[in-house]
């Protein structure tokens, strides 16, 4: 039996989208990793991250991922 890493559905929005090109879709993760650790691993600048949603619910950098989550990452948006 081969063990396979779990995946998440990672979506980067607005100006953060430019970091998505180097990230595989779906994105493999090590279960138990936090959102902050994952973003750091993927090279996404956390100082540009404003909102984190996991399966539609607000999370934060310390939220833990186990696989199969939908993770949405948003910068601040203020234009009018």
């Amino acid at each position, binding site marked *: 039996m081969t063990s396979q890493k779990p995946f998440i559905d990672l979506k980067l929005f*607005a*100006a953060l989208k430019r970091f998505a090109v180097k990230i595989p879709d779906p994105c493999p993760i090590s279960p138990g990793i936090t959102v902050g650790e994952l973003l750091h691993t993927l090279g996404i600048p956390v100082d540009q991250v404003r*909102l984190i949603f996991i399966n*539609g*619910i607000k999370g934060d950098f310390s939220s833990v991922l186990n696989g199969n989550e939908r993770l949405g990452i948003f910068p601040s948006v203020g234009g*009018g």
Partner: protein
Amino acid sequence: MSSLQDKLKKIAKPLKLPDGSPYLSLSLEKTSALADEFGIGKSSVETTALGEEITPERYARNMKSFSFEDQMKLLNANIGVVGLGGLGGVVCEILARLGIGKLTLIDGDAFQDSNLNRQFLCTEEGMGGSKAGAAAGRIKKINSSVAVQAYDEFINEQSVLEQIRSCDAVADCLDTIHTRFILERAVKTAGIPLVSGAVSGSWGQATTIFPEDTGFQSIYGNRATIPDKGSEAVMGCLAFVVTLIASIESSEIVKVILKKGALLRNRLFVADLTDNIFEIFHI
């Protein structure tokens, strides 16, 4: 001398909506004539007509969605539109067509070339002109029954509270995060609901904040540590997402006034038109 009500009943014209349902109609021309004859505003003629279940023809296509009472509530509402760029220009256009009775406008900016890609109030001939003046002029052209109070000045902590105090709700159409917090503080002090929209590239978001809600802090974080410009500083803004978010804001304003339908309270509507993602998140 006969009363306005009697006159209205006499001159109202029986018409049919496209689905065949009958209604009594009052034309724009007759509305103006009655306003002149009775020495009152057109808005008063329209509200009196609605009270007699006569439909001002300009609102005929609203009437399957709004009752007579709903349309009267809109005509009696005073809505603040703060920021008259991309979002604010379209919000003014929609609210004037819906029949919001009074619009209180705040923006001290003037048009420049780079506004032409998305700001509906911005025209080549109006370049360099004030956004508040252009908004007031456009509203007057669309619906001269709308009373306009325009402040040709940038939002500031000293005067915004007095400017928006008599509004029933306010649309935040600003373009910096810092000024959004200034506006939120004022509307919360005044006890008024706030509808907010923001855009960046092909991305947009909207939410509705009541005075008791957490509001911007749950979206932008702590006021003291936020950058003034968000993602839009990198991305610019595209017209189609500006009009989408302005429509969501206008719809929220109407639901706040009519106390009908689902609101985006403690929720963030987001739209990404590049990938056609539309979601509502709990914040």
